[in-house]
Structures are given as C-alpha cells and as structure tokens.
C-alpha cells in the first residue's frame, strides 16, 4: 500500500550493512553468541516495524544501536532481573592521577577477557565509544543517559579495563609500562 517492496529495499540497504557492528556489540555485552544472534535478529525486526519513523539520511547506525540496546536491556530485565546500580555523576573525583601499568603487547583473548569483566553499564559505553566510535551524544541517545554519565562511565570503564589488563600481565610475569 505504501510501496512496501521499495521500503524493504530501503531498509535492507540502510540497515543490513551494520549487522556485524550490532552483532559484535551484542555478543560482547551479553557474552553469549547464540543469545546475541537472537537479540540482533529481534532488533532488526523491531527496526523494520518502526522503519516508517526513521528519516532516511540520518544516522541509521546509531538508530539501530538504540534499538539493539533497548532489546538487550529488555532481555536482561526479563531473564536476569538485574538491578541497575547507581553511580555518581561526578566523575572527576573518581579518577586518580595514578594509572595502572598496561602491558606493551596486548593479546586479543586478554583484551576480550578484560572487557568481559567490565560491569555491564561500563562495558556498553566502552564498546560504543572505543570500538564503534560513536560520539558521546550518540551514545547518550542510544543508552538513554546524559552525556555526563557517558563520560563518567567511559572513564571508569577504561580504568577498570587497564587494571584488568595490568593484572593479566602481572600474572604472566610481564613487566608493564608505568604510567
């Protein structure tokens, strides 16, 4: 009635190229490959149903991430009933000048293991900022949080990540670079 075939084509052209981005983010946030596939599929179906609200030419990738995280958060609330922990908005006081030493050579499995240990909320922001390279403003829109919270979570998440990587290095007897 409204040119469904054309809309389908528009949707696939705009949305399908971001499949890998969405999948790897979902996988790293959830930690389960099969669940990530289901969540990404659900996100795409929801995106299709609301595609009429999407303005062509705007940031489809960020829009898809927003839908994905809506699906992920719904999934987590449903299955894990996880309470969202609060954090202070003021991030400056949390950051110390002292930095955990980070090994010069980082192996993929160590990095991924360190990411896996990040608290969920930090992990989401770190992945969106450092891997998907979304702007603070986009991350805030995707996760529905203020930009200040994005900044604080990113800073804390990175700090935890460096600590985990430093601990890995120490466990292997590798000398880390002191920062």
């Amino acid at each position: 009635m409204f040119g469904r075939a054309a809309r389908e084509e528009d949707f696939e052209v705009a949305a399908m190229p971001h499949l890998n981005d969405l999948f790897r983010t979902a996988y790293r946030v959830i930690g389960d490959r099969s669940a990530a596939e289901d969540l990404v599929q659900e996100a795409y179906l929801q995106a299709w149903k609301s595609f009429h609200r999407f303005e062509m030419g705007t940031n489809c990738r960020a829009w898809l991430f927003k839908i994905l995280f809506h699906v992920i958060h719904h999934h987590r609330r449903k299955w894990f009933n996880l309470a969202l922990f609060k954090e202070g908005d003021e991030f400056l006081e949390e950051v110390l000048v002292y930095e955990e030493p980070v090994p010069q050579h980082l192996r993929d499995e160590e990095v991924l293991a360190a990411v896996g240990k990040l608290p969920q909320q930090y992990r989401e922001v770190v992945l969106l900022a450092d891997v998907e390279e979304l702007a603070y403003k986009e991350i805030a829109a995707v996760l529905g949080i203020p930009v200040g919270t994005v900044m604080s979570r990113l800073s804390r998440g990175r700090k935890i990540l460096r600590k985990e990587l430093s601990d890995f290095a120490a466990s292997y007897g590798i000398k880390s670079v002191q920062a």
Partner: protein
Amino acid sequence: MNVINFEPSECKKLRPYLDSYVNNELLVETNHAVLKHLQECGDCLLALDSRLRVKGALQVAVCKDVAPSELQYRIQRELRKSKAAPFLGWRNWMLVVAVAVIVMIGSWGLFTAIQNNKVAASESAKRQNARVLHVGLGDHVHCAVERKFADEPFTEAEMSAKLGSEFSGLVQLLKDHVPGDYQVVTGHRCTFQQREFVHFILRHQEKMMSLVLTQKNGEAFSTATIGDVLQASGVTLHTGRLENYEVAGFATGDYLAFVVSNLDKSESDKIAADLAPALRQYLAQRES
C-alpha cells in the same frame, strides 16, 4: 564538550580529560591546552599512550567477531515473514482510516446524490405523467360524473352520428376488448376547457369507465420507465390514481388515449392493457 584552563603541571586536573581527548570530544581550546600539557609532561603522555593502546587493542580484538553468515539470511527471512504483520505505524493507520472515512463519506455523498437524483427524476416523471393523465381525467369527470351522460345511454345510431365515421368503429372495438358485462352507454365528441375529445362511457352496475381520446397539444408522457408503467404488447401504459380515479394512458403519434374509471387498480390496469394494443392500431391507421 568541556572547556577548562589548565595550570602548568596540573596533571590531576588534566587526566580526567584524557578520555575525552582520545575520543576527540574536547573543544578546540581545551584540546590545545591538553596538547601543550602533553608536550611538557611525560607521565600524562604515557597515560595517553596506554589509553590509545588499550583502545586500539580493543578495536582489533572485538572487530574479529563477525556475525555468522546465516544470521543475515535468518533476519531477511524473518523480515519477509513479517509481511503478514502490519507495516503501518499509527500515523499511517490514522491516514488509512482518514482516507477510508473520506472515501465512505464521498461514496455516501455520491450514493445519496445519485439516489436524490433518481428520486428527483422519479418525482418529476410522476408529475409530468400526472399532468398528462389529468387531461383524460378532466373530460371523464366533466361528462360522466358532472353531466351524468352515463345516465342517458345513446343508441348505436346516435353514437355513430356523434362520433362520425372516423371514430364510430371504436364502439365495436370496445365491445371486443372489454369484459362482456360492460355496456358502451355513451360515444360522442365533446369539448372541455377548449379541447376536443372523443369520449366513450362504459358501465357495469356501479362501475363506470371512460375511454377518452384527444389530439396531442404539446403534451407527452415521460420517457422514464420509472413509476407506474405497464407494458401491453409493445404499448407503454402510464397509470396513476388521481382524485380517487384510476387512470391509464398512452400516446400515439398524434393522440393521447386514456382509460379512466372508478374500478380498482388491478381491474383498471387489466382492461387498459387489453384495450391498448388494438386501440393503438386503430389510431395508427387513422394517422397513416
């Protein structure tokens, strides 16, 4: 975006902005201040380096995760299956409903207009036919009812004399085509409202019926086949109940013919239908 003025060697103030620096989220002024500090502070430079290395390593490691090839196929298949689900959002549904309402209103308006036109056309045809039927009715009332010609039956010789050779043959035609219990009591030429008529009155007890003929004077029955119309062997009979009389009429090329009676409609219609074809043929012979 954060703007801050750094004091020299104030690492504690700088460090929190290194994360935003890495993400290129600082304003130009702040960015310059960070760069200047980094040129002077080895510790902060190492801190920046560790952030960049972790970020780079993270990108490399995570980006090795690739969606399984069948996932795209699965999603596309589910999208196709979702065709049965309504694609329209509430705005489009509202649009559909609005269009449907407009179409319904438009259709109803069109239907009503057509019906109104039909009703108007029907009413117009009925009025036109009634005006024509009143021509025959008027002469029947004038002669048979008011002047009571039926009370003084004519002999066949009198009728022949009054009708003339042109219409005297109609007496026998009437006898042949109306029920046998009706008697032709009057046959004459008369004038009513400056109009000449050939008029026959038939009677059976209290039942009285007239056959009235007159030349057309611009009148015509409606060509619309709506309203009370009978077809009798190719003759279109227009009927109506006027002033408590049943009237049936038809037109030939030059004449209007009417059957007016105090009979009920079914009997009146039957007699008119039986009489009309023969009468038309008779008049047609005169016209030719």
